[in-house]
């Protein structure tokens, strides 16, 4: 299925793009993260397990076990530091 993926802050800088459309086999956010890590380079470096990464599905922060749906907007970002 096709999904849109956004990256922010240090993760955006490591991967080198702010957003991209991706074709994925992943059915969960965890599986999508693993798929991205397997691409190596900045993806592996910034999303690797053991790094604190927050994930949002359709602009709501959620757990990685959540199911991915066609056309979803997924975002990966570091812990937030506003305020």
């Amino acid at each position, binding site marked *: 299925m096709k999904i849109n993926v*956004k990256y*922010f*802050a*240090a993760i955006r800088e490591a991967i080198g793009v702010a957003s991209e459309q991706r074709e994925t086999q992943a059915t969960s*956010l*965890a599986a999508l993260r693993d798929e991205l890590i397997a691409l190596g380079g900045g993806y592996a470096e910034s999303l690797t397990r*053991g*790094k*604190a*990464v*927050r*994930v*949002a599905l359709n*602009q*709501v*922060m*959620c*757990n*990685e*076990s*959540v199911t991915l749906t066609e056309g979803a907007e997924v*975002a990966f*970002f*570091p*812990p*937030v*530091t*506003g*305020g």
Partner: protein
Amino acid sequence: MPGVKLPRVSIQSADFDLSAEVAALRAQDARVGAVCSFIGTVRDRTAGEPGTIASMELEHYPGMTEKSIEAMIDAAQQRFDIFGARVIHRVGRLQPLDQIVMVAVTSKHRGESFRACEFLMDYLKTQAPFWKKEQTPTGARWVDARVSDDAALAKWGIALENTSLSAQPLI
């Protein structure tokens, strides 16, 4: 009661005027007996060393930022006996002494405003998608999230962890 509905959340690069914001929030409701506001400002230092931050860049997630703060205000409205709330957060390049964030709340009596204002700031610090990058004499660096901010949210009984390695539960 109000003819014009003010926005509750503004994400903007421009500065803001606390007096004008509070006046607008109060003007709508003569039941108000208490106003509590908080302003966060840019410091010129980390770890107590003056002049170590020349400027900072605030990045955010347009769309989700507004939605998430709207949801926090809804949560505050449910939890506290308040009339109105307004949140402004600046983005882009900011210098030391600049205002970054404002939360203002109105209620009948002071207790609910004080609590709702702190609740909103604790929530925003750990759950609104903003990221700070500081310019220092040795280069730029992304600010690290603090475990103490998670603890501040936890005291409201909300167990969402911004800093943990595992993904957080669904809100």
